[in-house]
């Protein structure tokens, strides 16, 4: 995409990218679980995208393009700093969460809703959480999510499956209270 006029280039970039800032910020927030870190990653994402905007082909998927950059920034930061978000063993995920962490979570996210789902999502290992965020929350296709994360479509499918099952296992009681799945409990 060639832009001889800098103002027009900026305008075209903003018309494509700015409407996605909220989705990028929310995903960044759920990847990092830290508002400052999430904002830094979004800013870096926009800057990188702007610098490489001439390589963006009009008509291709801007959402997938920006999420690819976002995930790359996120992965590089945590890789460099060796401070990836804490992982819990999959087997531990069905244990009750620490109430103190709930308080922190509710304070961070506001108190507009029941934090059960957010808390469970936060405890999911990143490998399972990210496909859920991209596909179930942001509406990317399997193929787009595979492109964002740089892995095979089959891998995305199996991680998504595992993530959904783990999330359900963590939320089973909440789901039952909400009237879902009272009769049977699927094998997780």
């Amino acid at each position: 995409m060639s832009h001889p006029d800098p103002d027009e280039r900026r305008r075209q970039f903003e018309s494509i990218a700015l409407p996605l800032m909220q989705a990028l910020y929310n995903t960044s927030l759920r990847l990092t679980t830290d508002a400052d870190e999430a904002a830094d990653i979004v800013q870096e994402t926009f800057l990188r995208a702007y610098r490489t905007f001439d390589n963006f082909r009009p008509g291709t998927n801007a959402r997938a393009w920006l999420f690819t950059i976002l995930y790359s920034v996120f992965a590089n930061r945590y890789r460099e700093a060796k401070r990836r978000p804490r992982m819990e063993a999959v087997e531990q995920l069905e244990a009750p969460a620490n109430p103190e962490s709930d308080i922190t979570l509710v304070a961070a996210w506001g108190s507009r809703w029941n934090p059960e789902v957010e808390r469970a999502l936060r405890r999911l290992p990143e490998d399972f959480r990210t496909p859920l965020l991209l596909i179930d929350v942001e509406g990317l296709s399997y193929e787009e999510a595979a492109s964002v994360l740089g892995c095979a479509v089959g891998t995305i499918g199996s991680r998504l499956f595992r993530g959904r099952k783990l999330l359900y296992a963590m939320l089973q009681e909440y789901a039952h209270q909400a009237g879902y799945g009272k009769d049977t409990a699927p094998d997780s």
Partner: protein
Amino acid sequence: MTDSAGHLGVTLQDFLDERLDAARQVEVREHLEGCAQCRSELAALRWVRDVALKQLPVEDVPPALAARVAAALNAADKQPVRRRWGRRAVAGALLAAAAVVLLLLVSPSGIGDTLPEAVARDFTAYRDGTLPLTLHTSDGAAVERLFAAGGAPFAMRVFDLGMMQYQLVGGRVHRLRSRPSALFVYRGPDGRDLVCQMYEGRLADLPRSDDMREHNGINFQVYRAGTVTLVFWQEGAVVCVLASDADAEAVIQLAYAKAVKV
């Protein structure tokens, strides 16, 4: 299709997400009729996808982040672009230069819109959804902070038009014909948009207007571009302009109400 225990496993997800062909869907439906565990697992997967994850709150972008992004893009614009010039690029540049010379010859007034034309174009772009706002908020102070953090080189103020039934929608760190501009938008009665811009400049630099008004000692220059009315006035070193496709006199009255003699 089934695992070693005779259940569908990940095939259930492919079924749920409509990634199976028609024949396989039939097979899955037949299996589900006789397998309570797979039915239950399918219901759980569907609940996670369609209920649980749809409950997640959507956080607003912090105004400070929107301003930081705008400032970062501004800084990137100021950096020289390093290019490796190949023969083809040089030839392209020469052709482009020739085209510019040709345009100047056929267009003595120069290239590009006049300021009123540029403001009208911005209004239309906003109305058509191709000019996004940096920040969506009804908080005037937040929009003023956005412009301050975005490096606006002049003092500006966001109008309170609530008495006239215009609600602030948000703002954008903008450029109007390459000059920094504070752009903010209102939604008025009948869903009419009102786009305001402020930039450093002089009213005298605008092209001649056939409609010059004076109110409370302030001069207003009014332009019309199709259905869009533009009203310019000067406040110190800053030019203010309102643009809207609402009734022309109503737009002029809004300008009268908000203009301040400096």
